[in-house]
């Protein structure tokens, strides 16, 4: 409440500059009071993906400390975030998987921008107490393990990639997510890219018909089950590998290198994928199995979802400012929380895109 007069001044000032410049911030003047009318204490509300929540919540608190703009982000899941954005009950959504065309059409507020906020990586975690050095795996082998075609750890194909490693003659126990999840989407996106059989079979989605294995709820559930069960293998976000001190496999990328999951390797994957994009890309892209040198194959972008045209110009300005802050200052927080920062090549393009949110006219 203490900040209210400041907010009025800020918004009024914004409206005045908008009127005087007169070029592209046409509709701001009609909303000079809108900025202070937000109830519940938050200036902006957002909802969606749980995966980037630790980062977003740090951003929210740092941004509030730096600028006084309060943002309320609720981790309700990617699917929920998309639904709330479609219904316009939040100012921005967040999702690990890009919205499909049919989801885009259902958005009541018009065109939706996908703005990648950070790069995530999914690790193949396993529990083999006898094996001390990191296991090397290739895409087709991972796919065949999760297809149930490779069932023993000492399978000749795994052994061929790991000379000198004594692999146990035990069952491979596959663990996957039991609920719909962005992590599953990214992982199945990768498996579809490296295995035609997987693409034709379970396919790509937030939730799949798994050929083998058991389901656990949440990254923590999967990580916990792997930690507890010798012979288990599963896919989890990098942060959970570190928290649970699990072993993670080196994965072979299209350049033939075996790459450990790390933030540099994920940023490299994003960089290589972005280099191939056309200038006007909507960023609804997959960066799995990215060709770059040193790129980690199971990397993904997580998105902020915003309407190109927001009816409330003051909110549009605040949101655009926040996104620009997140793309620049905010990226410094990524590594310490086990995310990978966006490659510098993306930042300028995305900042321009965030700007066009603020200037959009009401429908």
């Amino acid at each position, binding site marked *: 409440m203490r900040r209210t007069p400041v907010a009025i001044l800020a918004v009024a000032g914004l409206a005045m500059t908008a009127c005087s410049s007169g070029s592209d911030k046409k509709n701001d003047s009609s909303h000079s009071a809108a900025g202070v009318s937000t109830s519940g204490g938050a200036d902006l509300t957002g909802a969606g993906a749980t995966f980037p929540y630790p980062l977003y919540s740090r951003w929210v608190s740092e941004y509030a400390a730096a600028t006084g703009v309060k943002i309320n982000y609720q981790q*309700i*899941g*990617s*699917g*929920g975030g998309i639904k709330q954005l479609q219904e316009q009950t939040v100012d921005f959504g967040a999702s690990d998987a890009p919205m499909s065309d049919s989801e885009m059409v259902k958005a009541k507020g018009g065109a939706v921008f996908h703005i990648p906020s950070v790069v995530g990586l999914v690790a193949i975690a396993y529990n083999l107490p006898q094996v001390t050095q990191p296991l090397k795996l290739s895409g087709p082998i991972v796919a065949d393990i999760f297809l149930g075609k490779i*069932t023993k750890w000492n399978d000749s194909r795994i052994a061929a990639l790991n000379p000198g490693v004594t692999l146990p003659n035990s*069952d491979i*126990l596959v663990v996957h997510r*039991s*609920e*719909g*999840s962005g992590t599953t989407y990214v992982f199945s996106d990768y498996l579809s890219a490296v295995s035609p059989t997987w693409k034709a079979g*379970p*396919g*790509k*989605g*937030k*939730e*799949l*018909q*798994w050929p083998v*294995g*058991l*389901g*656990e*709820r949440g990254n923590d559930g999967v990580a*916990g*089950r792997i930690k*507890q*069960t010798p012979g*288990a293998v599963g896919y989890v976000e990098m942060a959970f590998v570190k928290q649970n001190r699990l072993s993670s496999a080196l994965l072979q990328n299209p350049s033939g290198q075996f790459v450990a999951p790390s933030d540099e390797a994920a940023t490299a994957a994003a960089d290589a994928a972005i280099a191939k994009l056309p200038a006007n890309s909507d960023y609804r892209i997959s960066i799995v199995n990215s060709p770059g040198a040193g790129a980690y194959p199971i990397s993904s972008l997580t998105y902020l979802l915003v309407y190109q045209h927001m009816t409330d110009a003051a909110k549009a300005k605040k949101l655009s400012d926040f996104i620009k802050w997140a793309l620049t200052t905010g990226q410094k927080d990524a590594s310490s929380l086990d995310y990978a920062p966006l490659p510098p090549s993306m930042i300028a393009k995305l900042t321009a895109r965030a700007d066009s949110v603020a200037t959009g006219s009401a429908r």
Partner: protein
Amino acid sequence: MSEDVAPRIASRPTPALVPAEIEGASYGDRVYRWATTGFALVIPSLLLLIAWEVFRAGWPALKTFGLGFFTSSAWDPVNGNFGAAPAVFGTIVSSILALIIATPLAVGVAIFLSEFAPNWIRQPIAFFVDLLAAIPSVVYGLWGVLVLVPFIRAHVMPFVKDTLHLGDFPLFTGAAYGPSMFAAGCILAIMILPYISAVTREVLRAVPRSQREAALALGATRWEMIWDAVLPYARSGIVGGVILGLGRAIGETMAVTMVIGNRHELSASLFQPGYTMASLIANEFAEATNDLHISALMAVGAGLFLVTVIVNAIARWLVWRTARVGDGGT
């Protein structure tokens, strides 16, 4: 209970003589009566409303897949193909498994407490058994994840497979994950034990003293007295308690989700992961991918609703029957 209440009602003055029926007070009485009637009607209408909503929401899936929805074991959100057979199967199997484990234990505890236990031990044990019912299911789930499942994986499964050499027996095939139908049955057994035990204890206590004395007078041993005179008398009441436990097992969600392994597959092996209807809904509802997926989950909910209604109806009927038998006996 009904035996206590019935005579008192009968001995009251006839309604015409009750002071409340006097003219001046009748307005307040009528308001009171309509208000309580209203309250009473809220509950059944709430139930009907829930049933209606669940069936309505599940209708698109039931229409798309027909009755095959309950016999198909496909659950493929990517291609929009859903079938609830593994979940229905898992619900029934895990609940029955729980009953098989819990019933002898619970009845045994109840017999001990009502027939054998000295007073100083009866109260504490009864208290602890009842306390099992007060533990939140998520705590059972955590215990299952951290203690029960590792124990089953590291000791029970190797024992059955390697020591008893039963690994090829259909009930025990497959890789030893730990989370399994067996783990779910075990945890459910512990959870429903206090319900069955409490009901059985009450029923045994209601068996008339004359019944016991008659058996003893005929020269029966204590064991014969319990087996031939007390248990038959209490049988339908015990069955009612078991059915109540079954209802609880069918609806249990959280603890089962944490130990059953959440796998859409019909498997005869108790050591393989499975699914139940309740855990399926709990897992997938928040992140359901499309309208048909949500509808399929609601249809599973409708199926679960039907099963629990049927089980509760059976329990009611059995309890009612017990009460009548009890009346006839005294």
